[in-house]
Structure formats: structure tokens, C-alpha cells
């Protein structure tokens, strides 16, 4: 199953560019695709779709997915990476009205570029090719970084100190 998500923030902006193209790719590949399409008005014709999934159901979709295709949000990237799911990230663009403030998705994309099991796609026209490539190499999976180990240790330490007070 390919899980496509444009994020779960209900106050979030549309990301129809990704929804439309992944619907087309679903038709072209004949693959099982589930799209969490958010506020986008476009109703997919080929893919299964839902506006918003409850948090836990979304987590379940991440677990079941063979490939995750999403906007370049922290939650999407984090969930997929922690579960070791091959991941395609399409950064939202502020100039296209896909993001309200600045282009922080572009920046996050730049940081994740080149990691194993992660591909950054800026032009949705490239999605079909990259999806095919990723599906052909399921053994290439992302791994949590050493930065995460250090962050968790610091948070754990904070909580231990709070407990003693």
C-alpha cells in the first residue's frame, strides 16, 4: 500500500498539486493508494481517499505502508523515518499558496536530501518515475539519526530531574 499524506492539521492549507498527481499515479500504476487529502477540494478518482484520519488510524497507515509519499512536514517525515518506511517528500511552496508563512518545508527538504530511503521531489511531474524506483527497491529504508538519540537522552534527563524535585 502507498500512503499519501498532506498532513493532519485541520487548519492546514490545501496541497492539491500532490493529491491530483498521486491520484493520477495510482491510476497509472494500478496500485493500492490511500490519500489523506486534507482540505483539498479535489476528489481522487483512482486512489482511496479520506479528508482526515484520526491520529491513531494515520499511525496505522504509516505502519502498513510499503511506501509513504507526503508533504515535507515534520510529522510525516518523522513517522515514516521512525518506522523505517521508504519515503518521498514533496515540499509545499509558499509562493503557490501551499504554505502560509515561509518556505520551511523547502528547508527541511534540503536537510533530508540524500539520506538513504528518502527522496525529495519538487516537481510533481517526477513523482511517477520516483515512485516506481522506490517500489523497485524496498530494501532501501530510512534510519533514525544519531541526533535523535541525543535529543531523547536530553529529554529523558529533563524528566528525571523534574521527578526528583
Amino acid at each position, binding site marked *: 500500500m502507498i500512503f499519501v499524506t498532506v498532513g493532519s492539521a485541520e487548519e492546514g492549507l490545501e496541497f492539491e498539486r500532490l493529491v491530483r498527481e498521486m491520484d493520477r499515479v495510482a491510476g497509472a500504476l494500478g496500485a493500492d493508494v490511500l490519500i489523506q487529502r486534507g482540505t483539498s477540494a479535489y476528489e481522487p478518482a483512482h486512489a482511496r481517499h479520506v479528508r482526515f484520519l484520526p*491520529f491513531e488510524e494515520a499511525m496505522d497507515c504509516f505502519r502498513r505502508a510499503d511506501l509513504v509519499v507526503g508533504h515535507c512536514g515534520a510529522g510525516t517525515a*518523522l513517522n515514516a523515518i521512525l518506522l523505517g518506511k521508504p519515503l518521498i517528500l514533496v515540499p509545499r511552496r509558499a509562493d503557490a499558496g501551499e504554505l502560509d508563512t515561509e518556505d520551511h518545508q523547502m528547508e527541511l527538504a534540503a536537510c533530508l536530501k540524500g539520506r538513504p530511503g528518502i527522496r525529495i521531489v519538487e516537481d510533481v511531474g517526477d513523482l511517477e518515475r520516483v515512485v516506481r524506483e522506490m517500489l523497485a527497491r524496498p530494501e532501501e529504508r530510512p534510519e533514525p539519526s544519531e541526533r*535523535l538519540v541525543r535529543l531523547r537522552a*536530553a529529554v529523558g534527563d529533563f*524528566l528525571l530531574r523534574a*521527578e526528583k*524535585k
Partner: protein
Amino acid sequence: MAKVCLVSSAGGHLAEVLGALGEAAGEHDCFVCVTGFENVRRMRLTGVRRVYCMPVFWRYQEPFGVLVSLLVSLPVFVWIFLKERPDALVSAGAEIAIPAFLVNRLLFRKPALYIESITRLHAPSATGRWVARLATRIFVQWPRLLEFYGPKAEYPGGLL
């Protein structure tokens, strides 16, 4: 075991704060106060004992709706803190952290950790600017942000 209050909006921020805790969530007594949108109602989370849905008013997209929601959240947080008596507060945003950290700062004075979102690479978020004064510690996930937050901030690492 510490009793920990996690404050978060739905979506990425919740994934961030739970991801930052990792297995520590199961080692402590955690409860979550989350912005109460439809997709988090009746949610159960691994390692989290209780979920409180914070009030959300009509048109949260508009500044007025946010303001009203946050103001109404203030007494709700007082009630939750009196009931739960947390030892610590942890949040990775978004704006729902502001009333929580304010109530804690004024009335309860427990250690409060704010984790700036991983999506902030160059400049603090609006929430971060507000919460910085109210938090006891701030973790940033990229070293460049240290200069904005001053002596309370540290860079221990990041989620991604």
C-alpha cells in the same frame, strides 16, 4: 516516575513531542492536552494515560478564533493542573503551549521544557518567542537557533 503534562496541537507537533520522548513516555506518567480538533477526539496514545481535548472555537483559522480559544484554555489548564498536579510540562508547540506555560509560570512553577519544532531552522516560531519567557528550558533542534533564545536554550540534537 514523574507526572508529565504534554501540551500539543494535533498533527506534526504531537508527532514531534511524542517522538522526542520516545520510550520515556512509557517510563513516566504522561497525559496529553491537545488542541481538540475532530481527528484527535477519543484518541488513545501508546504510553499516554489520559488525553484532554482543549477547547477550539469556530474558525480557528482566523486570529480571533485562536485568541478566544487560547483565552478559554487558561482556566481549563488551571483546572487540569489542579486535578493532575504534574511534575513537569513538555511541549513542541503549537500556540496551545502559550496558555499552558503561562498558567504554569504564574501558579505552579514546575519545570517546563519547550522543544522548538524541527521545521524551524533559522528563526524561532511565533510560539517559541512567547513561550521562551515562560519556559525553564528550551531545546532547539538546529544549532543556528541558539543565538535567538539566549542562556535557557541548548541544542541536544534533533528528531530527524
